[in-house]
């Protein structure tokens, strides 16, 4: 009888332990679904070349920011609006390609500023949404200015040779402040190289017929971004962004 009671007691204890275990599992499972994930973090917003916070009508405009999203990125919304109500350049785009699903990344995009963009002050907003719907934003301000003395490259053409081991660059450089340097940054996810041109036939001149080839023999196949930064001798810079595929 005593043994029977003991066995029944042990059996009851085991049953209660099982109940507590199952209930705990249930709550843990619930907790997992509603676990708090940190909000996405945006930092190091760069607006314009070298963060100069200036955009020029008809030219390329650089934007960059660091993003950490422990909940994995869903999208990045970019919004540009004039500070003052009225006529002005407005731009919105939601980026997903190349960003969705990542936890840590650098937002790096180049926009074409419309040639008729109204000069003045503008707000830029980056809104990051993670896959749980958490949102964070960062804002900045920049100016659209007209500068007739800005250096420029017109008719810029890129021609990849049939082997894909050299890229020919042609165009006309104009620099009222006299040419100082042309940097060409060629970048893919696997390979990056910067080619700097400071040849005597271009430095110090206000006009130059660009005709150079850059060596891509050690660049692997892939999709490349190519970014030109033209600097003059009074410190003005302009950038151009192009793309090509090496097959």
């Amino acid at each position, binding site marked *: 009888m005593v043994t029977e009671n003991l066995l029944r007691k042990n059996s009851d204890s085991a*049953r209660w332990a099982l*109940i507590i275990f*199952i*209930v705990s*599992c*249930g*709550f843990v*499972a*619930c907790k997992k*679904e*509603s676990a708090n994930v940190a909000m996405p973090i945006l930092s190091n917003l760069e607006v314009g070349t070298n963060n100069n916070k200036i955009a020029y009508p008809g030219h390329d405009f650089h934007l960059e920011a660091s993003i950490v999203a422990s909940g994995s990125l869903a999208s990045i*919304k970019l*919004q540009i*609006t*004039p500070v*003052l*109500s*009225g*006529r*002005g350049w*407005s731009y*919105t785009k939601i980026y997903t390609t190349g960003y969705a699903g990542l936890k840590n990344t650098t937002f790096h995009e180049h926009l074409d500023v419309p040639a008729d963009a109204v000069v003045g002050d503008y*707000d830029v*907003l980056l*809104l990051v949404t993670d896959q749980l719907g958490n949102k964070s*934003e960062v804002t900045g301000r920049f100016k659209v200015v007209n500068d007739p003395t800005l250096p420029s490259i017109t008719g810029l053409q890129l021609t990849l040779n049939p082997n894909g081991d050299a890229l020919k660059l042609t165009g006309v450089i104009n620099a009222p402040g006299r040419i100082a340097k042309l940097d060409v940054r060629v970048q893919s996810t696997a390979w990056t190289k910067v080619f700097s041109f400071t040849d005597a036939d271009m430095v110090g001149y206000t006009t130059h017929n660009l005709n150079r080839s850059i060596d891509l023999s050690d660049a692997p196949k892939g999709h490349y971004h190519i970014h030109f930064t033209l600097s003059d001798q009074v410190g003005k810079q302009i950038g151009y962004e192009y793309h090509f595929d090496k097959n």
Partner: protein
Amino acid sequence: MKNTFAKSMLFTAIIMTSLAACKKDNTGPAEKPFVVTDHYVAGTITPANNAYNSVYMISLLENNKAVFISSGNNFTGDYTLTKDSLIVIISDPANYRVAKFAINEKHELTSAYYRALTTEYKATGKLLEIEATNQLAGKTFKGEEFKMGPVSFKKDLVYKFSSTGTTYGSGTDPQTINDQSNAFELINNSAFKFKSGSNVEMGFYTNNQLTVFRLSGLYYFGTYTQQ
């Protein structure tokens, strides 16, 4: 025996309760919350003499910024959304605009008012969701075009959008329409604006209909049904 049955019931009840706590979160698909920035306003503006129905769109951006898009320049302003109204104001005195809409609990616009500087216009407006994909791609529309008033100009005008949804063409003979003729700016995936010199054509798509306004020296307008 009775005791064992009671214990079994208690055991089952506890397990069901613990699982129900989870189930509560998963009861069917959650209703999508209304996010105003996932929408835009599209409608028409008509002067007092009924000479034309011009098309406009208002993009509703983050931080209560709004962009008013019409056949002229785009204007940026601010909007205020309450449970029963949407008010958009371009406060620049040289380009003052105000658009007021009544909005119901289904987030539909039930009335529209528009004033540019001191001139009031008859207005219509719809709050359209911004679709994830291009709604114009590959679609053809047909309908009656009007010119500078209520008299029909072209009985059966056809608009044909290319499969890429980046170009379109129009004409009265569907066989000869080149849908690559005009490269347009896609607005919020269901509206378009085409500019060529001083000529502007723009329209929006909703409920299988395309509402178009064209400024080409004179004003042309119409509503076209999807074919």
